[in-house]
């Protein structure tokens, strides 16, 4: 079985995880820029992080024969400081030509504050200006519905943004319809407690269809599973879904979306 892991924070995972993913059939892993668990103290911290995503992680993945791609941004949890955000955003264009950079992400909202919204708009503008794909993080738990609506409004209001160039991640039953109706792609994240379970993700597929959707683990430094995608594929098999249908979800769909960036080659 082959698959693409379209959202994993490998900087927080050990090399054993790369090995396990490769053994499970992973052909490419894509890593959005995210919150490290603490607030970085300056733009220089982000510069080093972007170097880690574009230089160190691809080499670490390549030792296991795995292709590594990444997304760059200032994440929503560090977006309350608009001045710092501006400094970080100014750094990003220097990295956009690196061979494994796919676009801007994971931008979005966390607590749905005005400053977070301002920084989201700044990064949507950056993506539009540089013709980049966008990967969006939607907030957790009670903040998700409100945040998803605010995010969709920002994207709709920027006429340069092509809806099919945006993947809105971490959808659940109450937000997936909004995202798909807006013409974007929808990502279901298989993460304990705060996001979807494999069973629920498959339920969503069975009710919303298999177009413009993908599965991901978003594994990070929290309790999470880098093999969540192949395990969900197994669950699909238990339910009687055919191999071709499973391949569409875990390989063809992410390949289609990510292939909109010419650098994404397997």
């Amino acid at each position, binding site marked *: 079985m082959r698959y693409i892991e379209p959202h994993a924070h490998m900087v927080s995972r050990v090399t054993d995880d790369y090995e396990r993913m490769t053994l499970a059939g992973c052909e490419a892993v894509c890593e959005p820029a995210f919150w490290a668990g603490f607030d970085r103290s300056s733009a220089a911290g982000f510069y080093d992080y972007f170097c880690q995503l574009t230089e160190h992680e691809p080499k670490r993945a390549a030792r296991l024969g795995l292709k590594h791609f990444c997304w760059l941004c200032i994440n929503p949890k560090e977006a309350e400081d608009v001045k710092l955000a501006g400094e970080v955003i100014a750094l990003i264009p220097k990295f956009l030509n690196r061979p494994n950079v796919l676009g801007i992400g994971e931008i979005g909202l*966390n607590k749905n504050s005005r400053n977070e919204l301002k920084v989201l708009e700044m990064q949507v503008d950056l993506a539009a200006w540089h013709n980049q794909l966008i990967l969006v993080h939607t907030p957790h738990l009670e903040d998700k519905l409100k945040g998803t609506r605010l995010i969709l409004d920002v994207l709709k209001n920027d006429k340069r943004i092509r809806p099919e160039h945006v993947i809105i991640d971490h959808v659940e039953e109450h937000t997936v319809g909004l995202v798909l109706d807006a013409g974007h792609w929808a990502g279901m994240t298989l993460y304990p407690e705060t996001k979807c379970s494999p069973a629920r993700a498959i339920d969503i597929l069975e009710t919303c269809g298999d177009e413009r959707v993908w599965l991901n683990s978003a594994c990070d430094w929290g309790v999470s599973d880098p093999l969540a995608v192949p395990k969900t594929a197994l669950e699909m098999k238990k339910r009687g879904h055919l191999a071709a249908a499973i391949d569409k979800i875990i390989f063809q769909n992410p390949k289609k979306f990510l292939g909109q960036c010419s650098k994404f080659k397997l």
Partner: protein
Amino acid sequence: MVETNHQSYIINQMTKQQVLDLYFLDARHKLIEVAAFLDRAERAPGKGDFRLEAFRAALGKLNGKQKEKARLVLLALSDPTKEPIAVAAGKTACGAGPGRNG
């Protein structure tokens, strides 16, 4: 009410019996955990807060024949407000919306 006009199509491979065979025991376990959580909360001294209220409201969505129970539960646990907040005081979510009086 969450608006959607997304046309769905069913790729349902399982019969009801197959759903029960595959998922009943896991769902039974989770139901008992929910019941035990409520027992625990009721047994504990002191006052609850909006989270317990929201939890009970969400439980009510499981009754009856209404469809999309998971979506309704998520809506019941969501922040219903629409405007951005002035400042993010912290980084974490708590699991339930502030309610109409929050």
